[in-house]
C-alpha cells in the first residue's frame, strides 16, 4: 500500500516536472516571436530589459493558467498593437506581404520561360 502511494506521488510530481519543462519550452517558443518594444530588433527572449523580463513572466503565468498561444498573443496585441508580433499576422493588412514571395517566384518562372528552348 505504502509503495503504491509513494509511486503515485512520484508519478504526480514527475508529471509536474515534465509539464514544467514543456511549459518552459513552449514559453521560449512564444517569447521568440514577441518583439521587445523598448529595444532595437530583439525578441523578449533575447533581451534583458525590464519590460522583456516582465513579459516573459507574464507569458509563463498565462501558460500555467492554461491559456494557449493565440490567447496570449491576442492579449499582448490588445495592449501593444500588432507591432509587438515579430511574425506578422496573416490578415487584410498583410496579404501582399505573405503572398509576395510566391507571386515573385511564379512571375519569375514566366519571365524566364522565354529563354529556354524546348528539349
Amino acid at each position, binding site marked *: 500500500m505504502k509503495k503504491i502511494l509513494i509511486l503515485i506521488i512520484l508519478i504526480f510530481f514527475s508529471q509536474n516536472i515534465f509539464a514544467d519543462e514543456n511549459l518552459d519550452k513552449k514559453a521560449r517558443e512564444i517569447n521568440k516571436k514577441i518583439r521587445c518594444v523598448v529595444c532595437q530588433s530583439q525578441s523578449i527572449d533575447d533581451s534583458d530589459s*525590464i519590460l522583456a523580463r516582465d513579459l516573459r513572466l507574464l507569458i509563463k503565468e498565462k501558460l500555467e493558467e492554461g491559456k494557449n498561444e493565440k490567447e496570449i498573443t491576442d492579449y499582448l496585441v490588445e495592449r501593444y498593437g500588432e507591432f509587438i508580433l515579430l511574425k506578422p499576422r496573416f490578415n487584410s493588412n498583410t496579404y501582399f506581404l505573405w503572398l509576395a514571395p510566391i507571386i515573385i517566384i511564379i512571375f519569375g518562372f514566366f*519571365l524566364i520561360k522565354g529563354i529556354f528552348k524546348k528539349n
Partner: protein
Amino acid sequence: MKYIGLIIATFFIFVCLFFALNKKEQTLKSPLLNKPIPEINLNSLKNGKLNNIDFKNEVLLVNFFASWCVPCIVEHDFLFELKKQKPIKIYGINYKDDIKNLKIWLEKLGNPYSKIGIDETGITGINWGVNGIPESFLIDQNGIIRHKISGVIDEKQIKILLSKIELIEK
C-alpha cells in the same frame, strides 16, 4: 516592355519612400486609444484603492512614474505647471517601485497627484501597454483614453494636452 513595368514599379516605390520620410511617426501608436480604460485595481498610497470607479465624470490624466526614473524628476515640475494652467486631476501610478523611496521622493519634489496607485509588479503597466516610464494617458469623462504621451511631458506636450482637453470639454 518589361522594362517600362520595372520603371513604373521603381517610381512608385520612390514616391512612397519620399512620403514616408516626411510622414514617419517616431512613436508607437497605442491600440488603447479611443477605447475604455483597462481594468485597474490597485492599493493607493494613502490607504484605500485606485480602481475603475475613480475614473468617472471628469477629465483625468494618468501618469506612470517611479522614484528610480530620472526623466520623471524633470517631468515633475511640468506636472505642476500643467495643473497651474488647467486644474486637472492627475492620478499617479507608481511603477515597480519601493514605497519607502516613493515617500521620500514625494516629500522632496512635491505631490501633484490626487491619488497614487501602487503597481509593484508592473502588471498594470503591461495592462495599459506601457513601454517604459514616464508615460501618461489623457482620459475623458466617460473613461475613454483620448491621448497617450510616451516620455516626458514638457512644454510642447502641455500645449498638446491643453488643446486635447479643450476638444474633449466642448
